[in-house]
């Protein structure tokens, strides 16, 4: 099913296919600097952007970049460079009714002032790196 979304100002719009409705939250320091809180993400199989000229891309590590709207500053996506996979911000979707938070990563970097009540599987940063790649820093 194709899902649609946009940034706050509407300068960037997208259509996404293969969105599993499972939201992950990352509590790492980098993600929190970027969004201001945990970074929420839903993985998409394919994404088509409208207004792509308004997308800013920042390489935050050797293997990933983060996309934002250059007009309003909305946080749009985290993308793995080698696979091209997009992890889109759930808050930008037009219909968020089917989403459910299922995982939390870098739980060891979560600050004390917030906690989610949702039942999720939780991984530390070390567990994430051990599972996915021999890499440092998200």
């Amino acid at each position, binding site marked *: 099913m194709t899902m649609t979304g*946009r*940034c*706050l*100002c509407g300068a960037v719009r997208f259509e996404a296919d293969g969105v599993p409705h499972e*939201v992950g*939250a990352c509590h790492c320091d*980098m*993600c*929190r*600097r*970027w*969004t*201001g*809180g*945990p*970074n*929420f*993400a839903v993985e998409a199989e394919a994404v088509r952007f409208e207004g792509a000229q308004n997308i*800013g891309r*920042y390489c*935050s590590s050797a293997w990933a970049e*983060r*996309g*934002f*709207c*250059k*007009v*309003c*500053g*909305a*946080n*749009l996506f985290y993308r793995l460079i080698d696979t091209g996979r997009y992890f889109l*911000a*759930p*808050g*930008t979707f037009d219909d*968020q*009714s089917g*989403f*459910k*938070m299922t995982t939390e990563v870098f739980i060891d970097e979560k*600050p*004390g*002032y*917030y*906690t*989610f*009540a*949702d039942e999720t599987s939780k991984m530390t940063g070390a567990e994430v790196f051990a599972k996915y790649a021999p890499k440092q820093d998200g």
Partner: protein
Amino acid sequence: MPGRTGQCLCGAVHYSAEWVRDEVGACHCGQCRRWAGGPFLPVATKGVHFEGEENLGRYRSSDWAERGFCKKCGSSLFYRRLDSDAYMMSAGCLDDQSGLEFARQVFIDEKPDWYDFAQKTETYTGADFFARNPQRKGGES
């Protein structure tokens, strides 16, 4: 209260500010979620001083407010009422986040079902918010 410092992800924008309270709020409104990707978690500050201001983008999201972000990395830095020097700075950009208490949630009626905070806080609906801030209307923040 002592000043604190913060910066965006890439470091192109730094700031120092004075805390109004050691409290974090959450806004669940549709605009904040479009902007931050999820709820916006601000800390109220005053006397903000920016370094790297040439890298600071400002977007007018309503007649009475603007949102600031880093033009290099896209970090969401603040929400500010135009008639005030009280910057609502993103909690995640603060260098020292110790001692912060999660105190209130606003636009709780716009919160989607996919997350819930465990903390017991004061909660306000959008109608509560506009009743307390009658100059802001139209359902936009």
